[in-house]
């Protein structure tokens, strides 16, 4: 990877677009540097020479910068051009989240670019893990820019400040720089290599069993669905699949994302991602009624463990808080899920005489009525049916498509949700029950906090986020990244694919 490696971050030209253009024109005659040994061999001798020449040129161009290898890229310290800061921003809680001034201040002062860089780069020294990573920007006018990439955190930051994206997404690391993809002679030379294994849990998928809120709104009660889901998925990823570096992130409104960052997870191909999604997926079918859980007995260890975790939540979150079967029409769905006609009839009769009987009572009725003799099937059948119901109402509802594709994009942590203004902060799974989505700071609140901060600036400059309620989240993220980097350092560098004599 001679090209991007030898580009030292310190000496990067100011204007990113000029970089792209000059590279495009220089690179034209040399396709895919990665599979060079292959494509070189294909080419007729003359272009072989030409390509070799080009390569020399490129090296000449960039080699001399190698000495300056300090890592200044993503430092949050404010550079001279911005040092003349606070023209105090008049921010009130009424300012619109998407106000350009707000977004500019957010990217300038609050977004933890340096940590984000290290997280994706897996090392303090800029590498292709970051440089070849696709970013996709959603601009204020709703334009969607794909295939953005940045050699350093600083350049990412600059483009954010210049374009003020309402959010940006993170895609895979590609075999070549995504910005250069059009200059490659062979389209197959541009392919996704790796990306975190990701999961997306969204409240939309719970709408058929959620009674407290509808649409985009959430409350403490329904957030429990997400909490349950995080618990079940997180433990499966750790204990079953052996992953360690799992970052959960609040999606800013009514859901959560998981980023599994272990090297082994990043290198999974689509079929392996699909298999993991399938392993974790349980509910089948849409919400047109009918039984959505059909599992073999004995329960697979993963489901058995999940049921253990979920049982408790079923009592509180489902029966007490959501009360999903209070209405008669909804109680009919519950009856449908019971396998025994005698029992169903007996329950129906009982409930007909007590309209709006709460769900907890109805749930207790099942066993009571069964014991009193109205059960034609075995008690094991009934137990299993009840387990299935618990699972149907509590088991995580993943948007599995997101997890199945290596090249799927997912919103970056720490961006602002344009609808709520809340920052997409990490969720600490050790205290997942305490996470309060409605307490997550909004961008306007944070900027106000900076203005109101009255602490002492010592010799070392206090980063702006340390003056705000974003601090614990950034600290958590930094800890997460540090632990990832520690493990990464130990990992052996992946061997280069050998391009020697092979047949077929």
């Amino acid at each position: 990877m001679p090209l991007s490696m030898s580009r030292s971050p310190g000496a990067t030209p100011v204007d990113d677009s000029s970089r792209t253009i000059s590279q495009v024109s220089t690179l034209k005659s040399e396709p895919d540097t990665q599979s060079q040994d292959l494509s070189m061999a294909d080419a007729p001798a003359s272009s072989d020479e030409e390509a070799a020449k080009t390569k020399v040129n490129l090296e000449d161009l960039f080699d001399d910068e190698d000495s300056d290898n300090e890592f200044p890229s993503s430092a949050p310290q404010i550079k001279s051009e911005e040092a003349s800061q606070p023209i105090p921003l008049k921010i009130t809680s009424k300012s619109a989240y998407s106000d350009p001034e707000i977004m500019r201040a957010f990217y300038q002062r609050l977004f933890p670019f340096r940590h984000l860089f290290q997280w994706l780069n897996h090392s303090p020294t800029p590498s292709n893990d970051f440089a070849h990573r696709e970013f996709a920007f959603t601009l204020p006018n709703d334009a969607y820019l794909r295939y953005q990439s940045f050699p350093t955190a600083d350049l990412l930051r600059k483009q954010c400040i210049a374009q003020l994206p309402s959010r940006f997404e993170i895609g895979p690391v590609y075999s070549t720089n995504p910005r250069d993809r059009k200059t490659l002679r062979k389209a197959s030379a541009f392919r996704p290599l790796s990306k975190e294994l990701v999961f997306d849990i969204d409240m939309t998928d719970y709408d058929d069993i959620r009674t407290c809120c509808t649409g985009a709104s959430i409350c403490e009660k329904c957030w429990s669905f997400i909490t349950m889901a995080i618990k079940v998925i997180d433990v499966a990823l750790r204990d079953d699949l052996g992953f360690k570096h799992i970052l959960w992130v609040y999606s800013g409104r009514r859901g959560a994302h998981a980023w599994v960052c272990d090297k082994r997870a990043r290198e999974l191909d689509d079929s392996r991602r699909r298999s993991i999604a399938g392993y974790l997926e349980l509910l089948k079918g849409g919400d047109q009624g009918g039984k959505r859980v059909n599992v073999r007995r004995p329960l697979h260890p993963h489901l058995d463990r999940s049921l253990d975790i979920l049982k408790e939540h079923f009592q509180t979150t489902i029966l007490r808080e959501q009360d999903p079967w209070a209405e008669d029409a909804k109680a009919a769905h519950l009856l449908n899920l019971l396998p025994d006609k005698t029992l169903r009839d007996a329950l129906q009769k009982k409930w007909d005489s007590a309209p709006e009987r709460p769900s907890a009572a109805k749930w207790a009725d099942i066993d009571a009525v069964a014991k009193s003799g109205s059960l034609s099937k075995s008690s094991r059948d009934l137990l299993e049916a009840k387990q299935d119901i618990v699972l149907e109402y509590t088991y995580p509802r993943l948007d599995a498509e997101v997890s199945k594709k290596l090249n799927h994009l997912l919103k970056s942590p720490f961006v602002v949700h344009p609808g709520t203004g809340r920052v997409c902060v990490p969720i600490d799974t050790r205290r997942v029950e305490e996470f309060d989505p409605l307490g997550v700071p909004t961008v306007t609140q944070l900027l106000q906090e900076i203005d109101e901060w009255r602490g002492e600036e010592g010799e070392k400059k206090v980063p702006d986020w340390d003056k705000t309620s974003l601090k614990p989240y950034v600290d958590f993220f930094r800890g997460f990244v540090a632990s990832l980097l520690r493990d990464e350092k130990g990992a052996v560098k992946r061997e280069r694919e050998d391009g020697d004599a092979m047949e077929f």
Partner: protein
Amino acid sequence: MIRHDYSRVEPKRRAYIDPKKKQFAKVEFQQQEYKHRLNYYVLPPTAEITLEEFETWAINRLKVLSELEACSFRNRSPEETAEYMKSILDKYLPLRSNSSRSRDLQEERRKDHYSHFILRLAFSSTEDLRRRFSRLETMLFRLRFKEDDLRERQDFVSSLNLEWEEVGDDEKRELKEALAAVSGLKKGEEQGWFKVDFERVPELVEQRKVVLKRGKAYVPQREQMSLVVAEFTKRLDDALELTARALPRLDEDDRLAPILAHLSQSFMAPDAAYSSSDANIDGLSTITAPAIDNLSQHFPLCMQNLHQTLRRDSHLKHFGRLQYTLFLKGIGLSLEECIVFWRRSFKLIQDDKFNKEYRYNIRHSYGDVGGDANRRGRGYTPYSCQKLLTEPLPGPGQAHGCPYRTFEPDNLIAMLQRTGVSDRDLLKGVREDVGKQRYHVACNRVFEHSHKKEMKKVKDDGTWSAADLDTIVHPNTYFKRSWLLKHLGEGNAGVVNGDKMEE
């Protein structure tokens, strides 16, 4: 047969097959002996075959694979599939066990071996084809594995030397409950367990037929088939990837290339024909709304028709709009520019009506709005010829679809003449094609005629492979190829086909 040796440089020596001349050393030439009925296809064939065998064997195997695919489309159960496939396999690709003592044993296995490798070449060019080929070959392998003679199957498996760690007694005790839950065996029943990285048994993981523990999958003995099959798929996928990268060299054999291209063409699914890399055109700068008028000279007739109708009426009806919007998206017009394009084209409509009635649909086509699935999928895929040729015919005032199909022949000819196609023989050919309902042949005929000079050039100087000049089955391919051919020597390398990168 076809060898790829990367240390070699001389182009003439590569990818060379000739039934008459013996250009390889004798050592490489030995017939392989096939001890087992099943084959992992690790070693490529080395002996010669005739061109006729090359083609017939490939077509026979293709027939088998297509029938298998049809079974999976029709949701046939494994048993139904096995039943249905029996006669087809006997006819096209028989493969008997050692115990049959058939005289044709070696010959059958040779055909199986060679045909597999030929199709590997034909189907390694795009990601879509590779995935499909791998899926169908895996189905075939599984089918045969299941019905194989038990003893012979065991011999085959041992011959593979797959490295599976056996689970020791201590560990079995430790995981007793978990293992029992997965194996479904009653107490007291014993069985062996293997331990492998979970990546090696994706199918079993997906169906929760293994116990997972810290990244290891514990696989019951009886799921051995899954392991063997998964390993088969993995090796095949890896090999296909390598073949794909080696592929350009094959184009040099001008006798194989057309056969291979034809094979993969006949295997093409209707919409697999569009690859989003069609939007990435070397040398074509970012397309803006005003540029469309000029670019439309490179459009296929279906899109020219829409464009002309739009210019004439300052309007297009819904399906035409959709077809054209997707096409424009496919050539790389951004959403913003696309909105500008339509806004300006609909001259007779006020801003607020436009915003209310049209803007959303355009954004929807681009996946900018709509349900999660739509947004994630970045909207709809541009329509292929197949799609246009199977849609309902346009009603009064509508202009969508393929003009070769929807126009009266006289009107079609008139339309072609308006676009500058006047060669009498050509028009006669078009009339015949259309009469036989070979609409895409007619379209390709027109393309080849109007790009004759350029196509000859890229063929002669070898800058384009045969695959790059394949039959066009997608309007976006038509545009891309036309544009590149008319801008040769302007710095674009001229890649037409490419892998599908994004969804």
